[in-house]
């Protein structure tokens, strides 16, 4: 690593001239940040389809146990475990991370800070290539003998460490290698994002003129890099347990399984904020644009986010309350866990204050942004209950936890992604998306989403444990009431999945047939809207100079209600 950093630095120092590239060179080996961003985006969306398909298969099994699932087949216990494990891992590591951080980060950062490309373009390409390799390795893990890994996305040892227990000898190892490769990819990408945003800003752009979404992606990258080390160490140890025969995590050989949980959750909790922050940033951009109002408390949001970033590192043991950690330690983590909901609430309040008194336009991106706010609130609030170490004895590993983190992750990874896509689609592809279809897609996603997870809070409180493939084996949980709820959730899921076809249609048809997008369809201030849609290679014909912050909407004395950052005079 040290070497790559050194050898690639001088790249930016000497110029090249422009020449035409073949299709393959242009779209597969490009070092252009926009192309790499799109590569991440499409890979992430493809993985979302895979993850959704897995969810469909196991939800069908829960609602109609033993039934042959259409388009899948029967789901046995081993199959079920493999499906939930990879559903979780894919959604977090191969959907939320690549789309929210890597794709939006790549596309937006250079455009928003007004430069032509990343500081290390070749490292950027390497990052995507490693990511692609991790996808390939993950798929390989499904098809080796014994099938895909089924030890849950948290892969607790000794189950995950010993092949005689998990029965997926190479499946488990390949899964772990895939996850580790993915981390390396984001490590490289993250270094690039942070360095670029600090070093390549347009002249005149002060720290507090950087759009909030760029800040959020930068902070998320920093948090990722400060937290991923322990998990890389843990993965290496777990891989050695699996393949070399060491016993770091195997109690029978003198190891300590709680150690893995320690290393995993040290990364695992910051990770949830790593994906949360970019989504919050995307939502902030959309809200100010469509409320035609200055973002309320730019600096407050910024400093609050710093605080969240720090606090996120001191709460992780709340995932281990009943793993047998010292209760006195649990007590400390209880307090920090409750503390961290304060800055998050503060950020959400600033968003509400941004909306207050604005002249809101309910365009599709805005609907998604508002949907984010409402659903995320529910997830955040239920987290507080889980944060109480006493309550968590009952709630832990129940469907209440499932419903909690889906109410947080779904708004982040899916709603945030769609919000960003609808907002920046004109910039990415140079065409507008259809508004009506976008709205149908929104309502068709948000209503069934709550139809899935609100009932799951109830079954969780009724004591339904997670990671069980057939509740008919448990007399207490096999009642008609509970089964009815399960069927309802599954039907909602299928409805939601069907509505995604509206999106797919809208997305691909608009790409070729949509109305041509102007440079600045939403009348926004940030620099990416000052270049043609889609931006040419090299982004800016003339590199911009920045005169003010990004959120000067409806300023008195201006003719227009927006005031681009690079405009020297009144608008």
């Amino acid at each position, binding site marked *: *690593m*040290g*070497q790559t*950093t*050194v050898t690639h*630095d*001088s790249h*930016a*120092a*000497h*110029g*090249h001239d*422009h020449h035409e590239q073949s299709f393959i*060179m242009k779209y597969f*080996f490009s*070092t*252009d940040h926009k192309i790499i961003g799109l590569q991440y985006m499409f890979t992430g969306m493809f993985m979302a389809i895979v993850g959704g398909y897995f969810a469909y298969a196991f939800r069908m099994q829960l609602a109609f146990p033993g039934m042959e699932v259409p388009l899948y087949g029967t789901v046995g216990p081993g199959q079920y475990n493999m499906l939930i494990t990879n559903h979780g891992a894919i959604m977090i590591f191969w959907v939320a991370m690549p789309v929210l951080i890597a794709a939006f980060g790549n596309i937006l950062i250079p455009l928003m800070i007004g*430069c*032509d*490309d990343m*500081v290390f373009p*070749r490292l950027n*390409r390497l990052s995507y*290539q490693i990511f692609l390799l991790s996808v390939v390795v993950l798929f390989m893990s499904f098809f080796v003998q014994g099938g895909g890994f089924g030890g849950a996305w948290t892969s607790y040892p000794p189950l995950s460490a010993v092949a005689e227990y998990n029965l997926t000898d190479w499946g488990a190892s390949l899964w772990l290698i895939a996850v580790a490769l993915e981390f390396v990819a984001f490590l490289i990408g*993250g*270094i*690039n994002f*942070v*360095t670029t945003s*600090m*070093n*390549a*800003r347009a*002249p005149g752009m002060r720290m507090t003129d950087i759009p909030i979404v760029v800040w959020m992606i930068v902070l998320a990258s920093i948090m990722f*890099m*400060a*937290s*991923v*080390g*322990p*998990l*890389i*160490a*843990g993965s290496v*140890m777990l891989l*050695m347990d699996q393949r*070399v*025969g*060491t*016993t*770091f995590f195997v109690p029978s050989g*003198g*190891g*300590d399984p709680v*150690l893995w949980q*320690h*290393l995993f959750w*040290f990364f695992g909790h910051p990770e949830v904020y790593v994906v949360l922050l970019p989504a919050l940033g995307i939502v902030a951009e959309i809200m100010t644009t469509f409320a035609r109002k200055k973002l309320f408390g730019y600096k407050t949001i910024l400093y609050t986010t710093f605080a969240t970033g720090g606090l996120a590192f001191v709460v992780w043991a709340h995932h281990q309350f009943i793993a047998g950690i010292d209760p006195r330690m649990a007590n400390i983590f209880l307090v920090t866990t409750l503390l961290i909901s304060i800055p998050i609430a503060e950020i959400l309040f600033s968003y509400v204050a941004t909306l207050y008194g604005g002249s809101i336009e309910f365009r599709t991106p805005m609907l998604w942004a508002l949907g984010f706010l409402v659903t995320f609130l529910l997830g955040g609030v239920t987290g507080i209950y889980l944060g109480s170490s006493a309550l968590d004895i009952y709630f832990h590993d129940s469907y209440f936890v499932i419903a909690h983190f889906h109410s947080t992750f779904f708004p982040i990874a899916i709603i945030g992604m769609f919000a960003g896509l609808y907002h920046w689609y004109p910039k990415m592809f140079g065409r507008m998306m259809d508004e009506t279809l976008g709205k149908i897609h929104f309502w068709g996603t948000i209503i069934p989403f709550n139809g899935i997870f609100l009932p799951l809070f109830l079954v969780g409180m009724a004591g339904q444990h997670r990671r069980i493939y057939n509740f008919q084996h448990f007399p207490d949980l096999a009642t008609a009431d509970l089964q009815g709820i399960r069927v309802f959730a599954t039907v909602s899921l299928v409805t939601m999945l069907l509505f995604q076809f509206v999106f797919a249609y809208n997305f691909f048809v608009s790409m070729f047939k949509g109305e041509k997008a102007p440079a600045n369809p939403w009348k926004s201030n940030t620099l990416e809207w000052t270049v043609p849609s889609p931006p040419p290679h*090299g982004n800016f014909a003339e*590199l911009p100079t920045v005169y003010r912050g990004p959120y000067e909407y409806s300023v008195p004395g201006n003719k227009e209600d927006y005031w681009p950052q690079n405009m020297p005079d009144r608008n």
Partner: protein
Amino acid sequence: MILLVAPEIPANSNAERRQLVSSSIFATVILIMTEVMFFAALISAYMIIRSGAEEWPPWGQPRLPVFATALNSLTLLASAFCLHRSVKVFSSQSSQSKQLLALTIALGTVFVSVQGYEWVQLISFGLTITSSTYGGVFYLIIGAHGLHVIGGLLALLACLRRLNSTSQQLTIDNLRAAQIFWYFVVGVWPVLYTLVYLL
């Protein structure tokens, strides 16, 4: 590998931006943040696994060569000193700087080689990675550090090659970045040595 060397699309203009600090240095510092946490995790793992053991080192396992390794550590520290001198005279006396850089690499190579020899000996005495958790954490931590030494050496070698080549210029910032990484590698060693060999 073909992926990595495919020609890239050049940008039509390259932003001339005044950097906060050279990008290569900035990137190295961020990388080191990750590395610090990586080693912090290894140290934690060591402490927890050790705390669960009845006896440390376990009965029948060989003791580590405390004194020989201490001497070996000195070569590593000396290499850091050479690098320090080399960077200091980089712009004024380039030939001396080059010699010092070569000396740094030589000392680093001596360090890894002696470590490797030590491993061979330990294995022949029956301390292997699977012989006990004691052996496991030993090879894990010292091996991870060894890999970092090798990585640092490669970075320094790349610098040296550029110093000798006429087509590619080595800037002071490139050398500084490699220097920071090397300091980190040298800097964690005393911590790991104390933890694994002395305590």
